[in-house]
């Protein structure tokens, strides 16, 4: 028989987020280096202020296509040769764009770092964007768009954004663009975008792993010597809601065994002063396994394999969303529970034990989040992307611990808006429409999955 006596924790050992150096090179390029001596590995993460929010209207997907095409050829080598050379070094370079930045990243064994960085410099110093590769990447994106039409989770996410934001908002359309916008992109669009935005003044290189700041500086300065200085033109971000009252959108998938649900409204920008109380509030509402929404929908009712809520933190107000998939016959019942949980956390102060669960988890798990060079590099990149203070990670745990049940109640009242909830259901309309219509979640509109 195992002892009934619960163990007590021993004394915690001190932890510090890896120390790092920061400097701006003469070209304007920012360099951040975190020496981590655990294993002979190094991650290089380049972030460029060239994310999808600066796509021109009608050319959605241009930032993503440009980042994708970055490693597809130079005057000397074509894309296949570049790929081969990187992979012979045991590394695969990835590039892409999300809402707030474009990125290029690689992880490599430290004894091959010098060659890999030199090669990276060669590849991105003067990319030629061959027409053939641009057209291929476009076709691959179009294939992906087709795939999403039959993939309930991806489809629910995309439709939710579409119905949440006004048509003029960049967030209303996928960051990689729509079938229509991608089809219209040209090589010359890509080339122009690259020359405007991929500049050293808009670029940060983060190096994390078994390396010294001095060596990193030499390697990076050389690799990026070809980029022009300065920064690209800015673009104002529009992110406004599409509806001012509750609406339900059913995206019809006849005979679907489950309904994919997304319920939410506009969230907050990353730099919002209520970031910490709002994050803790969300942890209690739907952020943790032991959160109210998951316990209710999964462990009490068995409606779902899992349910969660999150704020998608971006420079602009990304969505706040509750996401789950429930068996079709309990769709209305599950929506009722979700709304009840949103209302409950706004009306009553959470219990101390709920606060301590969220707080102790977020505080305690902090070191576990930064075990790998890629996780450390990405955390450091976020400092730059969101203009956070350089002591952000050193003060993070204290700021989490300072949040009170009062702060949580205030955050819930100020930042959850039951009257504005937009609901998207990817599911079998015939089976759920009537019961959902009786919920008072707003007017029900039914849509086809395919865009015509």
């Amino acid at each position, binding site marked *: 028989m*195992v002892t009934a006596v619960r163990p007590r*924790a*021993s004394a915690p050992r001190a932890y510090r987020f890896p120390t790092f150096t920061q400097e701006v090179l003469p070209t304007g390029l920012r360099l951040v280096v975190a020496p981590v001596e655990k294993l002979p590995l190094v991650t290089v993460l380049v972030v460029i202020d060239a994310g999808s929010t600066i796509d021109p209207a009608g050319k959605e997907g241009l930032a993503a296509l440009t980042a994708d095409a970055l490693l597809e050829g130079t005057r000397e080598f074509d894309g296949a040769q570049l790929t081969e050379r990187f992979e012979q070094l045991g590394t695969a370079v990835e590039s892409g764009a999300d809402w707030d930045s474009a990125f290029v990243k690689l992880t490599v064994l430290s004894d091959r770092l010098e060659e890999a960085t030199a090669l990276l410099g060669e590849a991105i110093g003067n990319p030629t964007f061959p027409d053939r590769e641009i057209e291929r990447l476009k076709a691959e994106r179009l*294939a992906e768009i087709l795939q999403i039409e039959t993939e309930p989770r991806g489809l629910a996410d995309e439709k939710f954004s579409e119905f949440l934001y006004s048509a003029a908002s960049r967030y209303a359309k996928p960051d990689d663009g729509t079938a229509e916008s991608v089809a219209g992109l040209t090589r010359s669009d890509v080339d122009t975008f690259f020359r405007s935005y991929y500049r050293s003044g808009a670029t940060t290189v983060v190096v994390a792993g078994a390396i010294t700041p001095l060596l990193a500086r030499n390697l990076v300065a050389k690799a990026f010597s070809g980029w022009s200085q300065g920064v690209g033109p800015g673009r104002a971000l529009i992110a406004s809601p599409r509806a001012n009252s509750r609406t339900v959108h059913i995206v019809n998938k006849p005979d679907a065994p489950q309904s994919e649900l997304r319920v939410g409204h506009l969230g907050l920008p990353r730099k919002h002063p209520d970031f910490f109380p709002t994050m803790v509030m969300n942890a209690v509402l739907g952020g943790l396994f032991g959160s109210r929404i998951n316990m209710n929908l999964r462990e009490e009712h068995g409606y779902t394999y899992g349910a969660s809520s999150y704020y998608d933190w971006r420079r602009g107000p990304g969505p706040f969303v509750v996401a789950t998939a429930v068996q079709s016959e309990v769709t209305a019942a599950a929506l009722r529970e979700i709304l009840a949980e949103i209302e409950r956390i706004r009306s009553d102060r959470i219990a101390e034990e709920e606060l301590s669960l969220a707080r102790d988890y977020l505080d305690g798990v902090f070191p576990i989040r930064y075990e790998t*060079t890629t996780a450390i590099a990405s955390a450091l990149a976020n400092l730059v992307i969101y203009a956070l203070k350089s002591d952000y990670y050193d003060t993070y745990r204290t700021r989490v611990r300072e949040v009170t049940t009062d702060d949580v109640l205030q955050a819930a009242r100020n930042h959850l808006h039951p009257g504005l909830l937009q609901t998207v259901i990817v599911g079998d309309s015939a089976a759920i429409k009537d019961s959902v219509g009786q919920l008072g979640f707003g007017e029900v509109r039914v849509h086809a999955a395919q865009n015509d």
Partner: protein
Amino acid sequence: MRIPIETYELDNGLFVTLSEDHTAPIVAVNLWYHVGSANERTGRTGFAHLFEHMLFQGSAHVGSNEHFELIQRAGGTLNGSTWLERTNYYETVPSHQLALALWLEADRMGDLLPAMTQEKLDTQRDVVKNERRWAVDNQPYGTMLEKLQELTFPRTHPFHHSLIGSMEDLSEASLDDIAQFFATYYTPDNAVLSIAGDFERAEAQRLISEYFAPIPRGKGKPPLPPMNLPPVFGRPGREVVPDNVSLSRLFLAFRSPVFGSAEYYAASVTSAILGLRKGSRLHRSLVRDRQIASDAASYTFDLAKGTDLLIVDVTARPEISPSQLEEEVEREIDLIYAEGVTQLEVKRAIALIETDLVSSLQSAGDRADRLSMFATYFRDPQLINEQSAAYRAVTTDRVNALIAERLGANNRASLMYVPREGVESEPMLAAAVSAG
């Protein structure tokens, strides 16, 4: 590069692996039970996985869902997963919470049944049925694993049936099944425990003795039916699945040497040459050059018993018909079968694998999980330190020998997903569907 490893066994048969690393105040606890869907009896498909869910529903001294709460409150992460050959449970916690993680694991290994109720079983059955709907039934290509198992293993083979299980079998599972499965498989002599990260050896050993030593040894488990299979399929298998998908996708399976065998490493390198990253053969040829595929990959399942499977996984471009896709992929395999691979291709594959091997040692949780894997399958966690050398020893000749033995036309099973509305337009496919 080697990580430090110490192993020993308790009197009750629990196999323990310890690996210290004090770079951060983090420790991982990881248990592998040597039981998976392969051990399920007829009429109980999905039970091993349903049982995994029940292990989070409390034990003699732990309330329902309290395991999750206590670990998260301690600032830790946790989960479990079920595979054909094993089930694992794991926690990564701040190092001063090691005792809690060990005690929770011991309590459910030693004394699970007092906490089991019909109500909890009914709820978890619903949760698992929803997991099936979510991951399998309502997901494009979601039935891939169970269809491949059905297609590639004979009806009587333990790997033939579905891991997530059928809705009917899940409905049949009872509390008696829980008690029986627990007594048979969840015993210390059928488990390994690994601890990796920041801990003091003496203290960890003391805690392990205190919590796990009182748990009695099991009475042995029934042997699995014979699992060995001939190295090739012989008769080619083929199934066409019209499904709610936008793009045709072909899974081509080959019988392949079992995980950990000397030939396994040549097979693993072969799959990397075929389909690991964008410089691989299939990606370069089908995605980049000829542009008939939107994606191409290859991997092994890493099964340690009977036979492994090497999978080639290619998704068509929208304008490419399923039969075209099948022809083009087969042609690539025929080419590699006829001509073999070059030394440069072998070098590329090994270089990529080596970086992945070192990367996989970064987190305490991954490290502990790999130690448990080598301990469970081979009683030898030191193998974690031998992997880079085993890959580096793979020569072009060995890869070509493997290809000659395993990639021929007599060793292919093809599982093809096609968009539903596309089936009628292709008479060949329509015939294959009605025949299957």
